[in-house]
């Protein structure tokens, strides 16, 4: 019996068991033939690749009874080393999205999509293709895909070649082609290099949101944390230049707020200072550098950019003396018309300070360098408009949403007689498709993806398909063969399935990587490990003489008004995350807005416009206009308006509907050398008079001297570390006897210095613990159910604050205020130090919630768990994601963080099987497991040598609201602030 059949049967039996709850009698269905090594009730793990963005992190999927209930990072994968970001964690809601396309659809003359059989749909497409091939019109076939750097991409190219189709366009809305273009100009290498944040001592970022979406955010976050953490008296420094206080900017030691579009000038000024002061690395070609930058006037640049000349000099010195430092740039938000020049200047900065080859590595090049350029996409659009395309296949791309409206891609689609979409979620592009052939979700598919040279992640079906989807590779092979009238095993598309093609490709990899190993063994090992990876040597590059076209400015000539800063959302990326309710409900890290989109408007401008928060504002550029509620910001540059990309969907399922507007409607379509210029328009704002209040769970950023999130200066922290001084433990008198912990005492440490506020833990917790999604209205009431939230606190001047991120969850207090007030003992203390909540005992008085000083208890105001309820939070097939180890709570019940009690029980069970006690690593809570910076450590505080114990004795350790005498089991470590830039 094949594994797939097992999943089918078990899936069916689970479904029967679930619907059977209300029915009597209940049935239990045994397997007909059991698969090897799979035991119902015991999780199996399958490795795959996360495809929520092209970073290509490795994942392992936890399979229980044939369905995936949790995603975790693959600990062996070199990109993410076991951790995942917020979007990766939410990947499951793509798999189980209730709006998924359930089978092939064909639009009839009336325009309504009608279900068709797969055979019929494939035959229909094959006949159209065959007719074109017969007339030698293969050029009229076009394929538009997302970036596919593995076998699927190669198969599609082979398919296109066999049919004589046009070259495939691998479209990524954020393709960072300016970096690639600059690499060509400066180093003569057409690639996006690998950036080693962990090896740098100073990181200087020009608007690159490397902790959010830029290139490979999980890998960068880990590198950043290692670079930035205080260890053995050393700590790196991070400097961020951006007009907006992005999450990455908030994590920098120094945020430099520049005038929008002045990044190139600043980079050139830095180069000038470095050369003038002779700070360049030895062996640098000075003449070439001087020739490239010309003779910029640092004073004038300081005035233009709003960054004082002293700051420019100080940053230049810091970067040059870092040895090595690292300069990165070109987040989408700062991609102006002069983007390539910005990147050239940044490459030169790295070259001048000797970072190339050390922290900027060509060789292990990023897969982003293989994406098609924006100009290629426009060329295809133009061909479509001219009627040159007869059949267009769209595979996992949503250009109608992600291209500026001015490209009129939707109109061009209407000129194509047959548009075939392989989307498995309905989207704006599939809305125009005549034929929808839903592809499998990546977690149901065979495949591979190479995020950078030397790393190939392997994907395998981690469960049987949820719906009647078919792998795009299988469909293409079948359709292509029918069109070419060739038989299986012959001709250019001889493979029976995509899986066969994949294996054939991997035979090639095996010969290269592991010659001598039998292929079956290699294949099995690769499946288990999640791919193959090997070191790729850094290729030495030499800077070429460069002439910078410094005449170009970032924004359109002659325009007036504030500049539009539109940036990829941490939660939605290019918009593909917007159909996932977990991501909608997780508040934005900086603004704290949930379930909506907004326009961040500087406070001064808002005052002039007489706009309050939540007032609808019409935002117009020469290219379009949108309406969005205002979010008033003190910190945004007065000359900018910032709008996140990702919301404003019209056809992307129920969760993405009516959530603001798409700012890409404001952009021009004109291609620039650096691709689409996101930072190029200036805006006119008008108050409309309408209101749409925003749902903001944490409305204030002011701690009111409560010292929830604490910090300590670097010098002081160093001193504490040297002395090894342990902070005095508060000894508050208690009327209760001291608690005894017979075996374990569970506790946790959270390093505020490492927490970057990315919220991956929030979603990991939601996924692990069956936490329901409540919707915008309830969030606005403060009834969101997050067991774990990231508090964002700010100190200092409002226009230039220092930000502290504080993960807040149940503190599992030793003297817990919630426990004595519970009239039914639903809240009580366990012998292992956990503050427990017994759902079936809870009667919902909410006394515990009122008495909790940390506000971490969550009440079920509505019945989220029963299908008959109007507030049911899990429409089909979302219940398949529910963790069977955790109860789904009912109406009127209090709930909160359990420190993943189910994982504690599981870890203890495994240890007992082996006849030993639990040690470090046996139990990882969901939040700890996914944290890209490893800020969270869980463990046994009773064992003085456990990691949690050791970290909790750190001289930076403190308890939140210690003065209340609650004696929390969670120790926070103070953030280490730098004096950098504060003098």
């Amino acid at each position, binding site marked *: 019996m094949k594994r797939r059949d097992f999943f089918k*049967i078990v899936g069916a*039996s689970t479904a029967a068991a679930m619907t059977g*709850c209300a029915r009597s*009698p*209940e*049935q*239990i*269905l*045994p*397997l*007909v*033939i*059991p698969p090897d090594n799979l*035991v*119902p*009730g*015991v999780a199996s793990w399958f490795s795959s690749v996360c495809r929520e963005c092209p970073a290509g992190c490795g994942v392992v999927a936890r399979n229980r009874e044939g369905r995936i209930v949790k995603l975790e990072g693959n600990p062996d994968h070199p990109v993410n080393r076991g951790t995942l970001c917020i979007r990766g964690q939410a990947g499951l809601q793509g798999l189980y999205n209730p709006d998924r396309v359930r089978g092939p659809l064909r639009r009839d003359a009336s325009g309504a999509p009608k279900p068709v059989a797969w055979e019929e749909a494939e035959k229909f497409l094959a006949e159209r293709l065959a007719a074109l091939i017969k007339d030698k019109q293969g050029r009229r076939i076009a394929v538009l895909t997302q970036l596919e750097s593995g076998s699927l991409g190669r198969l599609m190219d082979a398919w296109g070649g066999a049919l004589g189709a046009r070259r495939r366009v691998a479209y990524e809305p954020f393709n960072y082609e300016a970096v690639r273009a600059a690499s060509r100009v400066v180093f003569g290498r057409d690639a996006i290099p690998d950036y080693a944040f962990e090896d740098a001592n100073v990181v200087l970022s020009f608007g690159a949101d490397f902790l959010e979406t830029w290139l490979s955010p999980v890998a960068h976050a880990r590198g950043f944390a290692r670079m930035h953490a205080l260890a053995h008296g050393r700590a790196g420094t991070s400097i961020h230049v951006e007009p907006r206080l992005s999450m990455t900017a908030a994590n920098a030691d120094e945020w430099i707020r520049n005038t929008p579009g002045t990044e190139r000038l600043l980079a050139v000024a830095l180069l000038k200072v470095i050369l003038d002061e002779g700070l360049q690395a030895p062996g640098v070609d000075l003449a070439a550098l001087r020739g490239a930058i010309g003779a910029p006037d640092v004073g004038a640049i300081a005035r233009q950019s709003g960054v004082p000349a002293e700051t420019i000099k100080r940053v230049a010195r810091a970067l040059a003396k870092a040895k090595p430092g690292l300069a990165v740039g070109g987040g989408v938000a700062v991609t102006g018309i002069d983007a390539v020049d910005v990147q050239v200047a940044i490459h030169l900065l790295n070259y001048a300070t000797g970072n190339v080859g050390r922290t900027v590595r060509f060789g292990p090049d990023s897969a982003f360098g293989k994406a098609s350029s924006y100009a290629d996409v426009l060329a295809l659009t133009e061909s479509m408009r001219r009627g040159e395309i007869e059949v267009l296949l769209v595979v996992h791309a949503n250009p109608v949403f992600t291209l500026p409206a001015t490209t009129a891609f939707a109109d061009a689609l209407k000129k194509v007689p047959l548009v075939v979409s392989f989307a498995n979620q309905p989207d704006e592009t599939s809305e125009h498709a005549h034929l929808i052939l839903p592809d499998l979700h990546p977690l149901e598919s065979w495949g591979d993806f190479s995020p950078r040279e030397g790393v190939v992640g392997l994907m395998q079906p981690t469960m049987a398909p949820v719906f009647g989807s078919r792998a795009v590779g299988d469909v293409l092979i079948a359709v292509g063969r029918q069109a070419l009238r060739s038989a299986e095993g012959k001709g250019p598309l001889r493979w029976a399935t995509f899986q066969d093609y994949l294996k054939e490709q991997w035979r090639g990899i095996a010969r290269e990587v592991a010659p001598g190993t039998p292929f079956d063994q290699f294949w099995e090992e690769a499946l288990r490990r999640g791919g193959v990876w090997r070191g790729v040597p850094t290729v030495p590059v030499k800077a070429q003489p460069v002439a910078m076209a410094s005449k170009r400015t970032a924004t359109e000539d002659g325009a007036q008004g504030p500049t539009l800063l539109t940036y990829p959302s941490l939660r939605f990326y290019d918009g593909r995350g917007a159909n996932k309710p977990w991501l909608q409900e997780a508040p934005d890290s900086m603004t704290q807005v949930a379930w909506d989109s907004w326009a961040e408007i500087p406070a001064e401008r808002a005052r002039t416009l007489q706009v309050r928060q939540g007032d609808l504002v019409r935002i117009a550029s020469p290219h379009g206009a949108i309406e969005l509620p205002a979010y008033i910001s003190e910190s945004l540059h007065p000359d900018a308006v910032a709008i996140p990309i990702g919301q404003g969907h019209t056809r992307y399922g129920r969760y993405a509907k009516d959530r603001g507007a798409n700012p890409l409607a404001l952009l021009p379509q004109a291609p620039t050398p650096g691709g689409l210029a996101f930072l190029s328009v200036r805006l006119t704002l008008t108050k409309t008079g309408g209101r749409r209040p925003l749902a903001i769970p944490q409305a204030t950023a002011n701690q009111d001297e409560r010292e929830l999130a604490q910090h300590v200066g670097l010098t002081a922290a160093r001193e504490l570390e040297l002395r090894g001084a342990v902070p005095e433990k508060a000894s508050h008198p208690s009327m209760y006897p001291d608690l005894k912990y017979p075996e374990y005492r569970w506790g946790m440490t959270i390093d505020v210095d490492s927490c970057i506020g990315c919220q991956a833990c929030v979603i990991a917790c939601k996924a692990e613990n069956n936490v329901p999604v409540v919707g915008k209205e309830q969030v606005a009431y403060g009834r969101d159910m997050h067991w774990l939230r990231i508090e964002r606190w700010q100190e200092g001047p409002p226009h230039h604050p220092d930000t502290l991120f504080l993960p807040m969850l149940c503190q599992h207090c030793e003297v817990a205020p919630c426990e004595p007030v519970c009239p039914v003992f639903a809240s*009580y203390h*366990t*012998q*292992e130090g*956990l503050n*427990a*909540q*017994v*759902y*079936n*005992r809870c009667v919902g008085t909410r006394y515990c919630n009122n008495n909790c000083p940390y506000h971490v208890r969550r009440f079920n105001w509505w019945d989220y768990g029963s299908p008959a309820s109007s507030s049911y939070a899990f429409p089909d097939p979302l219940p398949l994601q529910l963790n069977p*180890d*955790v*109860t789904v709570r009912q109406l009127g019940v209090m709930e909160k963080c*359990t420190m993943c*009690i*189910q994982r504690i*029980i599981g870890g203890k*069970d495994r240890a*007992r*099987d082996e006849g030993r006690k639990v040690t470090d690593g046996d139990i990882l809570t969901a939040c700890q497991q996914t944290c890209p910076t490893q800020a969270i450590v869980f463990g046994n505080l009773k064992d003085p040598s456990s990691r949690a114990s050791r970290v909790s004795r750190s001289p930076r350790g403190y308890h939140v609201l210690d003065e209340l005498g609650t004696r929390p089991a969670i120790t926070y470590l103070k953030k280490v602030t730098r004096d950098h830039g504060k003098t």
Partner: protein
Amino acid sequence: MRRQVGVGVATLALFAAILSLAHSAGAQPAAPAQPIAFSHQIHAGQYKINCQYCHADARRSEYAGLPSVSRCMGCHKITAADRPEIQKLAAFFNEKKPIPWVRVFKVPEYVHFPHKPHVRAEVTCQTCHGPVETMAVVGATTGQNLTNDLLNLLGLARSSTPLTMGWCVECHTTMNATKQTKAPLECVVCHH
């Protein structure tokens, strides 16, 4: 005086009611009709087949597991293949369909009962499931119900194990006191 007689009559009536209830419901626990007349008496009683030969997941998993149809057929391809009930089994196997067994033992959904640690602690299956090896048809009246409560009140032997929380806790406490086991008594071990 009259009132006292009244109370006495009422008590007697209640007692009688309990006894009749116990007789009607308690003595014959709800035994649902199964798709195949499978007898534990024959398998576990007469032939002394180990419980875990068929319920093989009990030592590995939260669930005890039902034998796969192929496991049944492992013996019944030959053994008693001519009997009508076995032919029903063969039909399920040949059609590759699972047998729709009707569930007998169930704890509420907010309770996590893992079989594995109980097997590891050498608790016999009969402790919770009753003398299954003597039952031709397995039935049980579990949970909080009037019959169980009243029988308990009167100190009468219960027809089947009630699988109620008090009953679980009682066993855990007794075992910890008498056999020095470490059976957990934390609420959240089962309720999470």
